[in-house]
């Protein structure tokens, strides 16, 4: 579990946003100084508010979007020194929507073998057999090889997307909301499949999801993002059992378990929703924080190590991530 397969150091990405006619463009800091290490075999879940920069971060890790600052290493090599094809051999995506991510005019067989074709695989005679092997692995019947996406169910289409991602035996799979477009009965099949494949192929996952029950079920580590930064990161057990950052606490407290004797919890977050074009001073969470200290409005917190990760919050002491104040 110690081998680092993906290492992001202080990466940022901003977009220039036009403010309307004749007005200067302004930068939107979608990802703002993120450090992230992915170790072989782990399932790192990336969670956080809609628009906090999760997909932007994932796209950078996939080599689809260059960072505006910072460095990225894949398998010990700088991502910038790798070609697109080399990156694609190491890390592969599975996106949210199995309906729009497959080309409707291509057969299932050609969709699944496309990565082999793109990689200029030397042995086309073996493609069909390799496709059928991977189809079996993901639970797709061989007979759909010549079918088209429109002839498959949602769950089958997501399996096609998974087969396509896996045919070149990548080391890392980045799943952006892999099951949110699916029925719960299909979601459970896909989650079971991802678990099995992890064991069988020794895969490493980065998983983005709004469904925290799914995250808790799958993840070995959790990274919580807020306005472009990872504000807390650590082992899943530790983050779930004792969340440190007030935003993590609000997030976990908003999970709706199917218990009819409970109501909808109060998030205690207030309505000061963040505007990424106009970041708050100091800690970017302070306008919504119930535990704000006087210094939080001026001084941005720096990462403080905890027993299994880090937290960025002035409530905690420099050493051991202990609570600064007892309330």
């Amino acid at each position, binding site marked *: 579990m110690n081998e680092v397969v993906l290492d992001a150091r202080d990466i940022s990405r901003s977009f220039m946003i036009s403010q309307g006619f004749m007005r200067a463009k302004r930068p939107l800091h979608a990802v703002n100084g993120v450090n992230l290490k992915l170790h072989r075999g782990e399932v790192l879940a990336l969670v956080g508010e809609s628009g906090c920069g999760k997909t932007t971060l994932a796209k950078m890790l996939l080599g689809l979007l260059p960072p505006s600052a910072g460095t990225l290493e894949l398998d010990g090599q700088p991502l910038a020194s790798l070609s697109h094809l080399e990156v694609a051999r190491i890390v592969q995506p599975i996106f949210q929507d199995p309906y729009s991510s497959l080309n409707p005019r291509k057969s299932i067989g050609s969709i699944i073998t496309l990565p082999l074709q793109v990689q200029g695989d030397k042995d086309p005679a073996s493609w069909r057999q390799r496709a059928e092997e991977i189809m079996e692995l993901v639970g797709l019947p061989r007979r759909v090889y010549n079918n088209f996406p429109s002839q498959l*169910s949602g769950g089958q289409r997501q399996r096609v997307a998974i087969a396509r991602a896996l045919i070149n035996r990548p080391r890392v799979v980045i799943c952006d909301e892999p099951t949110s477009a699916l029925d719960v009965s299909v979601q*459970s099949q896909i989650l079971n499949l991802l678990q099995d494949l992890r064991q069988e192929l020794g895969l490493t996952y980065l998983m983005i999801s709004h469904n925290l*029950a799914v995250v808790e079920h799958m993840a070995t580590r959790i990274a919580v993002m807020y306005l472009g930064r990872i504000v807390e990161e650590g082992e899943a057990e530790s983050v779930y059992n004792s969340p440190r950052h007030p935003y993590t606490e609000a997030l976990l407290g908003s999970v709706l378990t*199917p218990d009819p004797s409970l109501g909808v919890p109060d998030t205690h*977050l207030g309505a000061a929703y963040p505007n990424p074009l106009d970041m708050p001073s100091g800690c970017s969470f302070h306008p919504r924080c119930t535990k704000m200290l006087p210094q939080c409005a001026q001084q941005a917190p720096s990462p403080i190590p905890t027993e299994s990760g880090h937290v960025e919050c002035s409530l905690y002491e420099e050493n051991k991530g202990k609570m600064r104040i007892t309330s």
Partner: protein
Amino acid sequence: MSNKILEVQDLTIDIPTPSGTLHAVQSVSIHVDRGETLCIVGESGCGKSLTSLAIMDLLPRKAVRKATRLELAGESVFDIGERRMSDIRGDRMSMIFQEPMTSLNPAYTIGDQLTEALRRHKKVSRREARDRAVFLLEKVGITAAASRLGQYPHQLSGGLRQRVMIAMALMCGPDLIIADEPTTALDVTIQAQILHLLAELQREFNMGLILITHDLGVVARIADRVAVMYAGQIVETGTAKQIFKNPAHPYTRGLLACIPIPGQTARGAHLGAIPGIVPSLVGRMPGCHFASRCSEVRDNCTTAPIPQFEGAEPGRSVRCLLADEATGREPAREGAA
């Protein structure tokens, strides 16, 4: 005066397709009281969205709608003409659509679309309409609400568009809201805030709320009553407590086994599954629609239509022969929820 805000009896929707008639919704009956929340859950394609479009009289033109009763606050709203219907829509009942992009007009600003609904149905000034729009946008968690009024739908992220849709549905303070997957694209903190808002407005206006969702956590927490649909039919009804603590239909039980429950499901363990796929609704199916995927199927499940059996408690019903053996009750009216 009855407390019933919506009453639908034996709603049937047929859609002609090249391969035959699609029986998308089959004899569905539901009712909602003022101040009450009915949740509809079920497999993708089972007819949830069509049912709500049928109530709003917004079905695609080729769809054929039948019902023995469709009443809003005791008055029939079935085939009353587009003129009268459009007076009711957006004013007394409104809908939050699953696909915000299809229901927001790309050519008009958010502000125009929000205020239009209110000014069309109620005598209010431009200023009052604008104030209410800003108030509701802020309520659904949109920052700089006043400056959003001048934006067009394509300039907003998916999550923002969905919240604009919710604000729009609330502009006139309707008697009934039908919300089709209103929080699916949103993160859990915003979801919680929007559910609070809906509950607050529901109390304020004594509204009926129909919420369609596949998030069983949302259903458990906010539903007064639940209708479970499968392949065009209601297969089980009951209070949230009955459905979650004591599910009677094998499909409902299967659904509940599929979701990981924090603190209960062992981390990383295999989740339950419902093998197989939903049957085609083109043509007639003789017996139970769930039979091909049911682990408890018997010979007589596939020979004749399965009626909706009433449970011991009022409002409880299930469309399953096994449950009939358990309760020994007479069949209820077709699918009453």
